């Protein structure tokens, strides 16, 4: 590669490519300090996909933007450690950050129409990203590369479409163009923030397939952020469930989906109708509303909405924050809950509902 990035990006040991350790993000506002993300830790290996699930305000986007370095340093308090390929991100100068961004990691946003510049042709926007990281490349190379990338993401007649403006693209094609833009410098780490939420299911299926294909070809690590558990189920190897700015459950996709260990995850799974579920049964909603991040609840962030606080002795849930520790299901499945055996308690509740 002709880019002048020094060889700081080689993993020092066999550490996973992305390691987030005890990340805390706070925003000072007129109303007080917003605790957007608190004590978040996770890691992603090359070629793997981590799905981050949570509702709006759970901190899933804020934590990812911290990794890509998109927060305004003057208005954000970030602490903890983020290592991308062995490089510590936090405290890195904007200049160094810019070299990493695009080269080592890139981000796909939800709203492609807002993320693409309306006044520049799609091809030119792609080429600009390539030129920024390949100073030796000519404009002609960059344009050729842009067309090749558009072709790779499945845009028909890429050489002509590269001369179109974003508004001339359909929603699915815009999303493809943005994926092409993110991948033009072969980043090793890709953040996809609700990349298919604005799309129709048939187009969503196309984009999900495309991302899986690209991951197979490039071996990149993907962090996939969404509130749609179905999409996570299709895409992710591992799942991180966030609530109120904290990780509340972390494990392999199959384990979290089939044996949730935390009442919030369980509640999410119970509250969505499925294509095969019994339609005479009522949905079991999670009561209440998401917590305020200005004044997070004491103890477990989920306790005001949890059905199972009565199963925990005393007022432990209100007083004490449970640690994110392995449950009974094995060391790789972490959960933040005071229940001794959440799976059993929740299975009993589900059985009661069916009676």
């Amino acid at each position, binding site marked *: 590669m002709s880019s002048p990035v020094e060889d700081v990006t080689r993993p020092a040991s066999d550490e996973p490519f992305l390691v987030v350790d005890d990340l805390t993000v706070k925003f000072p506002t007129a109303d007080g300090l917003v605790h957007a993300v608190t004590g978040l830790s996770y890691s992603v290996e090359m070629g793997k996909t981590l799905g981050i699930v949570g509702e709006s305000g759970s901190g899933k986007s804020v934590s990812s933007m911290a990794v890509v370095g998109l927060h305004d340093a003057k208005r954000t308090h970030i602490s903890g450690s983020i290592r991308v390929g062995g490089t510590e991100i936090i405290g890195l100068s904007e200049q160094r950050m810019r070299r990493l961004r695009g080269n080592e990691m890139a981000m796909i946003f939800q709203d492609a129409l807002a993320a693409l510049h309306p006044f520049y042709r799609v091809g030119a926007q792609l080429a600009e990203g390539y030129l920024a990281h390949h100073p030796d490349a000519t404009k002609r190379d960059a344009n050729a590369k842009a067309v090749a990338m558009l072709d790779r993401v499945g845009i028909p007649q890429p050489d002509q479409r590269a001369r179109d403006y974003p508004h001339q693209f359909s929603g699915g094609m815009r999303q493809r163009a943005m994926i092409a833009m993110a991948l033009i410098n072969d980043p090793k780490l890709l953040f996809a923030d609700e990349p298919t939420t604005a799309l129709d299911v048939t187009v969503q299926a196309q984009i999900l397939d495309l991302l899986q294909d690209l991951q197979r070809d490039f071996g990149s690590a993907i962090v996939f952020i969404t509130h749609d*558990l179905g999409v996570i189920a299709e895409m992710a190897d591992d799942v991180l469930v966030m609530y109120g700015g904290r990780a509340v459950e972390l494990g392999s996709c199959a384990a979290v989906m089939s044996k949730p260990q935390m009442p919030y995850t369980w509640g999410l799974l119970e509250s969505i*109708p499925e294509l095969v579920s019994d339609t005479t049964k009522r949905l*079991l909603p999670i009561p209440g509303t998401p917590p305020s991040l200005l004044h997070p609840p004491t103890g477990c962030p989920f306790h005001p909405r949890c059905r199972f606080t009565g199963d925990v002795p005393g007022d432990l849930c209100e007083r004490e924050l449970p640690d994110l520790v392995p449950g009974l299901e094995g060391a790789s499945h972490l959960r933040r809950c005071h229940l001794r055996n959440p799976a059993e308690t929740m299975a009993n509740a589900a059985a009661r509902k069916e009676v």
Partner: protein
Amino acid sequence: MAPPPETASDVGTSTDSGSSWSSNGKPLLEVKDLVKYFPVKSAGLMRRVVGQVQAVDGVSFTVNKGESLGLVGESGCGKTTTGRVLTKLYEPTSGSIMLDGTDLAPLSPKQMMPFRKDVQMIFQDPYTSLNPRHTVGAIVGTPLRVHSVVPRDKVLPRVQELLELVGLNPEHYNRYPNEFSGGQRQRIGIARALALQPKLMIADEPVSALDVSIQAQVINLLEDLQKEFEIAVLFIAHDLAVVRHFCPKIAVMYLGKIVEVGDRESIYGNAHHPYTQALLSAIPDVKQAQIGGRRERIHLEGDVPSPINPPSGCRFRTRCWKAQEICATQEPPLVQIGKEGHLAACHFAEPYDSAIHDAAKAQREAAKAS
């Protein structure tokens, strides 16, 4: 009016559930050949009409009293336009909307007035559909005042009753919408729609703007209210799992036309139209991860074509793996297949068979290559 038995207007007149008949034995809502075109005008002074966006093009269906019909399809297929034409927010280009024996289609806004309270709407976006400068009491109370359904001094007690009904604190009538969360706002919208005790409610994507954990609350609320007041609901949504849960009957739209309609079991268990099959296969499902392994998807190419210039014949043919010559020349009628009340508009309607899909796809690709 006695429509021939094989047209779409016959949908749902079967008595399988046995409960959903209005007093005169007719369905509550009978939509027939509903058409809504939007003119496309040229730039410049003359503003000549240069084309028509065929948003809804000959849609027929019926909804019985207290029943819900789900309307699904991709964006741009005309499901929202259909809902808006039914409330006469848009004037229909042609066709009839029989509501309890009255055709709403030709009515002027003034003539429409007494019927407005029978058809109410719940909107998708709880942020833009409530006036930020009005209190909740004013928002929910306005329909009561406009239609003078209760004496002026009884408006407030009725508003509080409605707020309680949708699970909000009746003491909050003096608050403004910005003091409520998204789910609570949607409840305000539901209370407003409920105020006039409508016979038909049009719910246009009522939960898609809400967080997953809140969606179930609102769906359960709608279910309870529908049962309690026997309101018919036209449930417009793109989330097929939610529609399956809520609606015993489902109509699938594509580019302004209904391509398949039937009861829940027919659509989700035995879909015959390739578009329905593709739509169902595209939904990511949690169950997949629980049992491990991934399901085979039907890959639809490209996007929905422009409704200004829709494909000839069958409108789905440009994305269909089964398309033959006949599909380009003849538009398939919506006819009954198998079970009563299960209709599909396809020349090659049959249950999905992956072998046929793969073979047809391979053949088409080979033809394209040569």
